């Protein structure tokens, strides 16, 4: 058991196979049309992935997610770093963030749609809001924990406040920021799917509920598998990147904790 679990990538693969197996058996025992056996859902996979319209829908969703995510990083990282280094900035933003935190970002969809229409702008904005909070939070925590001595030395060597933020605080907080980004990535995917489920105009979430409405249950499950794989692949790819960028830091969290 021990040796098997040390082959990289094998345990998750076995876990997937196990889950599919449980699903297959459960479907046969329960025997309702709402839960088709795993192999029938898997058979639908190539059909969706070669269908031009579905593929365009999925790519559209991914593009919005990428734009919203990048914008969130550009805004959230500097805010978080400044909050971590300046008490007043932290005092300014903290209560506001506390109020926004429990509001589901995808729930703002109907209102934002009223203001910006049903197009890309609303969905991108919602993803932007969803990703920003965890990134701000982790950048804040990371910047707060920077060793004061390093900053004093830098100041003594003549670095200005902006340069200190960029050259000392940012790299020192990077491992923590990367944890925030990882949570943010999972969140971007969640917010994307949810906002599409609520707005129901295009994208993966819409695909899912269309299939549900037309009682194409195999397609529903196949789409779920696609979204699941998307989540897993994005998370695993980022973990590889994170390991390269901040290999010098101790890995803090083993697994991303996503919230909505």
């Amino acid at each position, binding site marked *: *058991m021990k040796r098997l*679990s040390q082959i990289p990538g094998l*345990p*998750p693969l*076995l*876990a*997937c196979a*196990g*889950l599919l197996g449980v699903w297959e058996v459960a479907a046969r025992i*329960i025997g309702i049309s*709402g*839960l088709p056996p795993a192999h029938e859902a898997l058979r639908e996979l190539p059909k969706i992935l070669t269908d031009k319209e579905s593929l365009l829908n999925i790519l559209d969703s991914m593009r919005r997610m990428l734009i919203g995510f990048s914008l969130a990083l550009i805004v959230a990282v500097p805010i978080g770093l400044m909050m971590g280094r300046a*008490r*007043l900035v932290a*005092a*300014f933003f*903290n*209560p*506001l963030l*506390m*109020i*926004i935190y*429990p*509001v*589901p970002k*995808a*729930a*703002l969809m*109907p*209102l934002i749609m*009223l*203001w910006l229409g049903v197009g890309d702008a609303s969905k991108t904005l919602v993803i932007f809001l969803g990703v920003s909070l965890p990134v701000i939070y982790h950048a804040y925590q990371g910047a707060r924990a920077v060793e004061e001595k390093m900053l004093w030395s830098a100041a003594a060597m003549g670095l200005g406040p902006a340069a200190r933020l960029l050259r000392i605080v940012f790299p020192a907080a990077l491992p923590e920021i990367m944890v925030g980004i990882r949570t943010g990535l*999972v969140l971007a*995917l*969640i917010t994307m*799917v*949810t906002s599409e*489920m*609520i707005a129901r105009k295009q994208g993966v979430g819409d695909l899912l*509920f269309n*299939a*549900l409405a037309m009682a194409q*249950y195999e397609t*529903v*499950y196949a789409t*779920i598998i696609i*979204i*699941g794989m998307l*989540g*897993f692949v*994005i*998370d695993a790819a980022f973990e590889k990147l994170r390991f390269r960028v901040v290999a010098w830091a101790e890995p803090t*969290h*083993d*697994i*991303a*904790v*996503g*919230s*909505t």
Partner: protein
Amino acid sequence: MTAGRRTVEIAIGILPIALLIALWHALAASGATPAAILPPPAAVFARLLQQFGNAQYWDNVAITLFRLFSGFSIAVVIGVSLGLAATGSRLIESLVRPLVRVLAPLPKVALYPAMILILGFDHASKITLVAADAVFPILLATYQGTMAVEPKLVWSARAAGTSQRMALFKVVLMAAMPSVLTGCRIGLIISCIVVFLAEMITSTEGLGYLLVRAGRNFETVDMFVPLISISILGLTLNAAFNMLRGYLLRGFPEEH
């Protein structure tokens, strides 16, 4: 921190919120945005206060709370026991770890249609979704917390005659309590968010449904009410949980 400084910080904290409301008021009052799109803040808060006296509103809040706490309780039970079991047994650990690795980054909301198909449109599918989303932070925090417990504590308990299993409950779980409770707090806020979303996607009652219904009828003022309600609910739950946490952890050294 001195009291004076504290007041200054609170005042600075209120500033952006006040600015936001002032900007909102100015936008609505200037007539640049019609009231159907952006109602004035005074109208929204008046409506919120009015709803506080409305029995139907409280019925919807009660249903949302029922789903929230049912899902959250299931998540706490499963998350804490699996996390503890993974620390206590190698075999369970090697089963749980890869499963979590695969399932944690999966957007649980994508499973919601499947839950509807299997469990129907009523409470069960929503509670399951809440539990599925809240369980992972609790499980991970329990696992990481219990793994970090000083082995010497367990050895002492074992030497004093405690059985392996009892040591797991009485020593390891208790020592890891701060971490477990942190996981629970994250799980609670996630439950709050997820229950609202589930009610928005398909429901006929609850706070999320109130928002969707108002949206369909273009009653913009009524759309703000559930959003503000969920924010207040989240803040209240968070504060209540922090008090509970302070009570449960009264023997532990202060963190932060």
